[in-house]
């Protein structure tokens, strides 16, 4: 947590590392260069946090985990090349070469994309009620990671050889072998993207077979997995009593994860409204119109946004009450579904009493 806070604060003092060669003074470049190298320290702390989280645990290589480990390894390499570029003199030499291109792809592909994909595969069943196909997920991962290294590692070498970025053509024979390797890598990444599309298509096709009946497909530790998949509109019929960091895990161990509440209460919920989505679309139109100087459209979009806000702000009935009876009916259906659900495929983890996962369901 402290490391995250440190990164958050330090991140305000590194932005000029994008502009070392713009002609600012040596003092300015030194300051931002030093801050940029320092930010690697709390980042390293976080990497060790993640490693120690896994240490002595039993790691199960499902697609979200694969992407997470791929992130860890690849992100560290990208970070190290970033520390090199953080030195202004080095940046003067490497600036505008493919070394830089390799570096920032080495950060954003694991740091952002792999993170997105891990999260997408992890929480997809919670949001949509069925699991994503693991075979195609694993295939997409291997294509992505192999393709990534083949596509971007040669760019480091090419950058050191002096190849500028954004070239329309080149006539240096020495670059050719590296660029061919990079092209092969790009093709493998493309196959990885196709795998992702196939994974989604196959999962939607098999959605009945791969339904997440328990709401807990990963034998999870945190409370979102205590709800059904997808969750009821109110999330929890009664607020759970949290006694540990891994509250749901702890509840499963105590055998109280699936206890029926003694009674149900009415729940006040916000009504569904299309207004935020409408404002989003109108704001997009507004931005487009302003960028291209289409003034009539800008005025129209702004008026539409204002009107939508006025309509929303004049609405006295934005909430509704879900009666206890209906809450009870939804929860009863959930317990009936739980009773029918096959045991979780991940319950055989050591330290977890497999049979008790559904204890309390009667």
């Amino acid at each position, binding site marked *: 947590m402290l490391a995250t806070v440190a990164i958050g604060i330090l991140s305000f003092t590194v932005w000029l590392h994008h502009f070392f060669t713009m002609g600012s003074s040596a003092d300015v470049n030194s300051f931002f260069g030093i801050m940029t190298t320092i930010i690697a320290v709390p980042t390293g702390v976080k990497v060790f946090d993640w490693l120690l989280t896994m240490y002595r645990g039993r790691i199960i290589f499902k697609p979200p985990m694969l992407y997470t480990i791929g992130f860890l390894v690849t992100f560290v390499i990208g970070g190290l090349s970033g520390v090199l570029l953080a030195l202004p003199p080095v940046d003067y030499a490497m600036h505008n070469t493919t070394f830089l291109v390799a570096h920032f792809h080495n950060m954003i592909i694991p740091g952002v994309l792999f993170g997105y994909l891990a999260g997408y595969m992890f929480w997809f069943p919670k949001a949509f009620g069925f699991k994503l196909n693991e075979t195609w997920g694993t295939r997409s991962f291997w294509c992505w990671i192999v393709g990534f290294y083949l596509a971007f590692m040669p760019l480091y070498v090419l950058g050191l050889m002096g190849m500028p970025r954004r070239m329309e053509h080149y006539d240096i024979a020495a670059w050719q072998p590296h660029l061919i390797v990079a092209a092969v890598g790009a093709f493998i990444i493309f196959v990885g993207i196709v795998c992702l599309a196939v994974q989604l298509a196959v999962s939607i096709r098999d959605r009945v077979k791969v339904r997440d009946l328990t709401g807990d497909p990963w034998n999870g530790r945190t409370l979102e997995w205590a709800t059904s998949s997808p969750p009821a509109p*109110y999330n*929890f*019929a*009664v*607020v*759970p*009593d949290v006694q540990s960091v891994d509250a749901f895990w702890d*509840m499963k161990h*105590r*055998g*109280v*994860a699936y*206890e*029926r*509440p*003694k*009674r149900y*209460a*009415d*729940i*006040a919920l916000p009504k569904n409204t299309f207004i935020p989505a409408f404002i989003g679309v109108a704001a997009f139109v507004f931005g487009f119109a302003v960028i291209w100087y289409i003034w009539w459209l800008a005025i129209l979009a702004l008026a539409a946004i*204002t009107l939508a806000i*006025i309509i929303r*702000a*004049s609405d*006295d009935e934005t*909430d509704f*009450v879900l009666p206890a009876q209906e809450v009870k009916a939804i929860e009863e259906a959930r317990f009936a579904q739980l009773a029918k659900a096959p045991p979780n495929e991940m319950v055989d983890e050591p330290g977890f009493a497999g049979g008790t996962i559904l204890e309390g369901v009667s």
Partner: protein
Amino acid sequence: MTAGAFDTIETAALPASEAQKFEERAFGFWIYLMSDAIIFALLFATYLVMLGNTAGGPTGQLLFSLERAAAETALLLLSSVTFGFATVALALNSRLRVIQWLLVTAVLGVAFLFLEYGEFGGMIAEGAGPDRSGFLSAFFALVGTHGLHVSAGVIWIFVMIGQVLTKGLTSPVASRVMRLGLFWHFLDIIWIGIFSVVYLPGLT
């Protein structure tokens, strides 16, 4: 038996009372105001940093008029007082008085905008628009953002007049008027900052 995970808190999901709901909304509105204050803090800081960067163009001494700035300040401060009267009328549950004072507030706000519009138009006509220098970019960004807020506030006063007319002083309407009041007084405070950071030092 182990303690049931779901036994202890049974009432937390009950519908919140109306008063509590409005209190929560007021709190949310305060958070919005504070984030808006951060935006203005950044614009003030930018203005102060850019103050000297006139690129050979006109300085504040040449452009600002103390009479106009004083009139703008008077209008806005007075409008805060009249909004205060609207709030008092709200507490007295007098629908007519609320509408009257909101109308007065809106007229004062429009008069302020009218003066500011004249000021901006005159500056741009003299070739002292936001594209003239870093100083003027920062000036228009800061004062213009405040002006946009006042414009939104005026629109909102008319929306609330409409709600008081059609719905009466129901508790949702009253709570909205109170939040609009927070917004209006907040803009007054920002203006005092603009008056003391932009106009007064700019003229001396």
